[in-house]
């Protein structure tokens, strides 16, 4: 049965993908801001804890608004991703014996696995640094110390670095694809070429990774 209005939009493959692109845009904007904010770690404990205080106390209403927006975006993003993936699988019940991908990138082909890794990473990350539930020595509002102690656990730091590798791949495809999905990409003679997405895919994970790396290598303590 064909539904009407917004529901029909959601039912269509184009509509669902547009929802993915729009929520992806929100998430990309968020990771850029989050990464930039995190770099204050290198200004030392006073500055970083003040930043944490700003978000957790002074601007807590704004923080909640952002949390709710992000949660909504992630839920819609994953729901659309899952449903489209199922449709796409069903669209080719019998595969090829011989198939040579011509131009698709490694990033495009790992969107689903990368997404699953990030899906495991996000709750872990919140339980680790926000609620402290999974942190060995969590102190409320002492963000700097929490990060240092958190990343002194080797496997935790490695898990974070793995997530950043997948984030980079996800962004290399996603931060390019979203503009095309939303129909706002300019026509191009080489549509597969991406500059902005490449910059985002390098700068964002690299910026995030500086924190666990600097702690692991003993620069920050």
């Amino acid at each position, binding site marked *: 049965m*064909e539904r009407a*209005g917004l529901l*029909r*939009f959601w*039912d*269509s*493959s*184009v*509509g*669902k*993908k*547009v929802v993915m692109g729009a929520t992806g845009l929100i998430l990309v904007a968020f990771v850029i801001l989050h990464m930039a904010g995190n770099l204050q770690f290198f200004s030392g404990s006073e500055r970083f804890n003040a930043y944490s205080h700003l978000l957790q106390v002074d601007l807590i209403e704004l923080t909640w608004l952002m949390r709710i927006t992000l949660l909504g975006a992630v839920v819609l993003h994953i729901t659309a991703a899952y449903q*489209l993936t199922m*449709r*796409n*699988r*069903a*669209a*080719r*019940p*019998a*595969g*090829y*014996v*011989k*198939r*040579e*991908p*011509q*131009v*698709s*990138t490694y990033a*495009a*082909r790992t*969107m689903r696995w990368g997404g699953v890794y990030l899906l495991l990473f996000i709750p872990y990350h919140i339980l680790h640094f926000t609620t402290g539930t999974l942190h060995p020595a969590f102190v409320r509002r002492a963000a700097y110390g929490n990060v240092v102690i958190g990343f002194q656990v080797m496997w935790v730091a490695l898990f974070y670095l793995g997530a950043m590798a997948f984030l980079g791949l996800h962004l290399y*495809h996603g931060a*390019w*694809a979203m*503009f*095309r*999905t*939303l*129909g*706002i*990409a300019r*026509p*191009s003679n080489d*549509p*597969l070429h991406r500059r902005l997405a490449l910059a985002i895919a390098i700068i964002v994970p690299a910026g995030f990774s500086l924190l666990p790396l600097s702690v692991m290598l003993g620069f920050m303590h």
Partner: protein
Amino acid sequence: MKVVLHVWRQASASAAGKLVDYQADDISPDMSFLEMLDVLNERLIVRGEDPIAFDHDCREGICGSCGMMINGAAHGPMKLTTACQLHMRSFSDGDEIWIEPWRAKAFPVIKDLVVDRGAFDRIIQAGGFVSAPTGSAQDGNAIPIPKQAADDAMDAAACIGCGACVAACPNASASLFTAAKISHLGELPQGQPERMKRALAMVHQMDLETFGGCTLFGECQEACPKGISIDTIAQMNRDYIFAAATEREATDVLGSG
């Protein structure tokens, strides 16, 4: 030259298929790929075997009938070239060549390499008509059309509906085909009155036909023998978003004119 072929043989839509090996000797490098299959079929007939069924018509790259997967690439290794325009000189003596039909739920195999592409016809039908005067041709310059729009429409109209985009897409998506058809009319003034309706109807039909969705792998654009750009897909999405946002319920017709 000599080549070894691994060809998908399937007696009917419901029969199970399998790859069958053939040795094709004495092949001239100047033969087209389809001529090579013709020669092989002649030999099969002489031996009393069932010839390999494949679709073809114009053999000059314009009808879109001749699609097949050749060595894992739609229409074979040459860019911007249909299978009928591919020549054996693109291969080397002794090569092994895998030949398979397009694979998609929406393109069921009829026999061997022949698939039913009726789903494409139904997407076109869903697009409906354009309110342009036909019959008496109007004055050539009566409707001004920007050069860029004319060029873009012409580029999109180059689509021959062969199905290579679906075959090459890891999601078996018909987005490039549908987008080409939507943009070719949508770029032109004559296509404006039904532009929004067309985008909604064609996308809906594309979904009904069980094609997958677009994840922008880019494989379709690479496989397309007519060089249709994935820019058309951005255009389709743009039209679809506008159409969905501006669509209104049918109004009652009141009074008389």
